[in-house]
């Protein structure tokens, strides 16, 4: 009774792939920018903060259109990338880029909060014991902010799974290429007799979201316990 058609499967698998890559690719710059915003004072800090948060405030269609203008095959970034064989527009990688950018502010916020919760005095203690800044980060800060990183990653993953507006504007809605779960649900609702398919995908969406949430809850509890040091 609950059998996904190949077309529906395709959308589910593509969405998982897009969200996973979007999250993984956003993590390193996300941690770096969160650290910079939490701990450093530098000129242009407020501008960087604004840029990071822009996708949260702008209509997703605007973000998607800006991506199309810049990362399209004739865009200022897209054109040179095309020369070396990297194309984002109308590809699944473009969907991942759009999802990653839309999810970025949520991830940075969560990680930044957890960095601000780490007592800089512990980092000072590490420095006096001979650890350079990088080592202090790797051995003190990073382990202590793992719960925040995990929370940020889960939030970003969930946001990436659900991203619709920027994705459909930037990479369109090509089955098997760029048709993610939300785009597929939207497409099924546009054709007569597509409600059953749409409903099945809705159930899958809910299941994935619940699993991700529960997983993050369990993991963050485990890590928080370890970090609390009891």
């Amino acid at each position: 009774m609950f059998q996904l058609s190949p077309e529906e499967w395709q959308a589910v698998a593509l969405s998982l792939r897009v969200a996973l890559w979007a999250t993984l690719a956003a993590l390193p710059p996300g941690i770096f920018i969160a650290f910079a915003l939490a701990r450093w004072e530098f000129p242009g800090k407020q501008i960087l903060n604004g840029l990071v948060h822009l996708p949260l405030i702008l209509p997703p269609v605007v973000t998607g259109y800006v991506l199309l203008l810049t990362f399209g095959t004739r865009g200022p970034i897209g054109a040179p990338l095309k020369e070396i064989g990297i194309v984002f527009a109308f590809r699944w990688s473009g969907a991942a880029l759009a999802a990653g950018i839309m999810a970025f502010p949520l991830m940075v916020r969560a990680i930044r909060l957890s960095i601000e919760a780490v007592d800089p005095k512990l980092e000072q203690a590490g420095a006096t014991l001979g650890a350079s800044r990088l080592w202090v980060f790797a051995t003190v800060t990073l382990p202590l902010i793992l719960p925040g990183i995990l929370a940020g990653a889960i939030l970003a993953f969930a946001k990436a799974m659900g991203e619709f507006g920027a994705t459909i504007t930037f990479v369109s809605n090509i089955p098997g290429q760029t048709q993610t779960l939300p785009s597929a649900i939207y497409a099924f609702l546009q054709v007569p007799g597509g409600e059953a398919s749409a409903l099945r995908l809705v159930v899958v969406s809910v299941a994935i979201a619940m699993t991700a949430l529960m997983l993050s809850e369990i993991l963050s509890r485990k890590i928080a316990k370890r970090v609390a040091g009891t």
Partner: protein
Amino acid sequence: MSLDVAIRHSFGTFSLDIAFKAPPGLTVLFGRSGSGKTTIINAVAGLFRPDAGRIAIGERALFDSAQRIWLPPHKRRLGYIFQDARLFPHLTVRQNLLYGRWFAPKSGPQEPLDNVVEMLGIGPLLTRRPGGLSGGERQRVAIGRALLANPRLILADEPLAALDEARKAEILPYFERLRDETSVPILYVSHAPAEVARLATSVVALQNGGVARQGSATEVLGDPSVTPLGAGAAGAVLEARVTAHHPDGLSELTAGDLRLLVPHVARAPGTPLRVHVEAQDVMLATRRPEGISALNVLPATVTALRLGEGPGALVQLDAGGNVILSRVTRRSVAALDLREGQQLYAVLKAVSVAKDGIAGTDPG
């Protein structure tokens, strides 16, 4: 190896201009809160950069504003014991202890982990995490962690201030052992005269952003013109020795030509001790008082007189080769007609002599 510190820094309304040399052993930076003690120790650690000056361990400069030298903290090879322990919560006690060793040069002599663990009595804690430790246990682990980093200098910023009296008594002996059993110089920040009296090889008294006096605990604490905590907290330190235990529970000490009776001290005859005598516990009499319950009535000579701004005065006395301070009122100074060179009697209450000021100093 000794530590040379000379720093100048301006904090707007408060400016710091200090210079001192910390010889091997334990040097106490002594002063009230806000006297710049922590600023100085953080400058030595590399956590605070002063406007100008020079800080060097032996010949090696950690900071020299003239030559534009500023070593970051991790290149200074220090062991810093913080007031709040600052153990890493995500690591076990053993991992905390070995943290500094990871970054220390692998060549050269290394203090074996087992020795440190045994000296501090933290063997049973090794697999635990800091969250479950008591304040005293944490501070012992912090001492071990600093020591195992193979430091050329140990810094301690009021390491006992956050502990209750019982825990203080638990930790103090470990600092004595650190002072006596390792060759690493220790810079120790404190505003507690009892700690100074007990631990210091050398005392640097800070007052008004400068060094008021540097010398032994006896010299600095016995100087009536140096009262970093105010005259109310003044008190002299006597180098004494246990001579006998009396059957009625009293112990007899000698300090110079003096004989003192104090409540029982659990030390063998011959053991050297430092005795802390608070100035407010010393009364003065021009004639030997009779019919008085105090056991220690000492003939003394006034060597200095310092009138305070308020109603009080500090009198420095020589009693059998020892320096003693007495805090009296200006009215008493006038009534007794106190003058330098005057012979009189100092009355010490036995209890006051013993008041958490008696401590063993290992001569070794």
